[in-house]
């Protein structure tokens, strides 16, 4: 058991170290952090201008969408990095097969790759929110932040996203490299169902049911409540206001456990299948 834990830790550490190097050592760390801000910031600005075109002035939906879209950058980064790590190691570096035959498991290695990406976003996301506060009048104040909720929800959310990323990475083991990346496509599609941009009550009833089944919906609600005092304003009609903070955290804990077990099982199956079909050194350069 002890040896297994040590081997898991080694695989995670190596994955994180390699992920950090491949992600960031092309430039200075400060430039890397600024570069990491580009995506969340421009996403937030898109919605700022969409609202500005419509109403011209301040809009009550701005804090809702800005916090949602900026925090959501973590989802995109994690999903993309884990799925992309498979493609990069398989097709660009040609080393996935070596990872597969190494004594350490692929599962914690991919975790490490994802973790490296999140690390940079832990700096970029707060900085982007700060830009929103300073230049767009976002109503976030240090004194009103619910730190307990924030510190409880953040790691739980990251855990949930990591498990989803792990499932996606497992599926990528059996797929070709398409134009962009499947992590990016999935993250973009989940925009629709997680209430990142608008309250889930805007969705048709069938889509709202899907939204309620996705743990990220509750995580984003937690993050909004932690950062923005008016997040529970009934006028927003989020459809989640009846849930207490504790209930939201409980849902996240349950989701993390369930997704963890699922991702582990899928990873084992997918890795076995990829070996069986000879896909670990597949090249899809069409």
């Amino acid at each position: 058991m002890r040896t297994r834990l040590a081997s898991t830790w080694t695989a995670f550490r190596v994955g994180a170290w390699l992920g950090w190097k491949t992600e960031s050592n092309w430039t200075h760390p400060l430039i890397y952090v600024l570069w990491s801000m580009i995506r969340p910031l421009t996403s937030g600005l898109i919605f700022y201008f969409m609202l500005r075109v419509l109403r011209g002035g301040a809009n009550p939906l701005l804090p809702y969408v800005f916090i949602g879209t900026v925090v959501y950058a973590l989802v995109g980064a994690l999903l993309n990095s884990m799925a992309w790590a498979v493609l990069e190691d398989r097709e660009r570096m040609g080393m996935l097969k070596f990872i597969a035959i190494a004594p350490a498991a692929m599962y914690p290695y991919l975790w490490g790759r994802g973790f490296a990406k999140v690390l940079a976003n832990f700096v970029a996301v707060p900085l982007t929110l700060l830009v929103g506060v300073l230049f767009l009048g976002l109503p976030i104040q240090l004194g009103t932040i619910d730190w307990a909720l924030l510190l409880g929800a953040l790691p739980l959310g990251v855990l949930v996203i990591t498990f989803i990323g792990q499932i996606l990475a497992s599926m990528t083991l059996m797929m070709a490299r398409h134009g962009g990346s499947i992590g990016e496509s999935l993250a973009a599609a989940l925009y629709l169902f997680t209430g990142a941009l608008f309250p889930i009550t805007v969705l048709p009833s069938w889509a709202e049911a899907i939204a309620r089944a996705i743990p990220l919906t509750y995580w984003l609600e937690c993050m909004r409540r932690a950062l923005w005092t008016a997040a529970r304003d009934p006028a927003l009609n989020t459809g989640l206001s009846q849930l207490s903070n504790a209930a939201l955290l409980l849902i996240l804990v349950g989701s993390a456990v369930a997704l963890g077990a699922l991702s582990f099982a899928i990873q084992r199956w997918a890795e076995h299948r990829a070996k069986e079909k000879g896909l670990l050194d597949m090249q899809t350069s069409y």
Partner: protein
Amino acid sequence: MTTAEHSAARRPKGPSKTVIFVRSVIGRAYPRVIGLQREKSWMFFDILLPLLATMSYVLFYTATGAPNDFKGLVLLGGAMSAFWMNVLWSMAMQLYWDKEQGNLQLYMLAPTSRMAILTGMALGGLVATTVRAAVILLGGALLFGIEYSVTSWPWAIAVFLLSLVALYGLGMLLSSIFLVYGRGAWQVTVALQEPVFFGSGFYFPVRALGTVAASAASLVPLTLGLDAMRQLLFPEMMQNFYFLSVKAEAALLLALSVVFIAAARWSLNRMERKSRQDGRLTERGN
């Protein structure tokens, strides 16, 4: 015998330059089209998920109570975003990716022009991208009941085609530049994705950014192409939001097409020479 006659006499008989060019275009486009048929998962990741992503932008406008034309504006932006993604990931990045995989040296050895290979790449990529764009445009229109009131089909088709020619010209130019880059190319591509969605007004009329910013953003052909197509598809709404007249935008797109393709040709030769001199054509993992 003159020098030209002498070299012509020494040249073995074979297909003309034009025939080689056309064959190369077909040869490079072929694997992209066939690859799509062999890997059906692209339909899910490249068509369905982007449709969902675009739907979330449409529903954001729904949440704000915007008129239907605004939703159409977003749909068009979502459809055209497919082309930008294709240009970035499957054109600009492709030679870099080919270099990493060892294909680039084969291209260099082949008795054909690199422009032919890039043109084939563009045409092959256009097949899947056009399907994706059409699904977003038509599927979204059906789902949200959006009507396009086209004022002039010939102009709409002309502007669309001009936008694509200029855009893929830009893709070829970027591709040649990325040929000499290391991993920085990758980061530049990521950095170009979202900011262009913002700067080119994919989800709101670009005039909202102000004349100076919109003019600067016009270097990306889709800025002008989107604005012109929106004027032709949603004339009533765009009366208040258009940036330049359709004719002016079409003329500028024509100019951009010529400039980008000429610049790509020049840059490709120059970068290829530089890569040969620096010994970077066969470089991997940097």
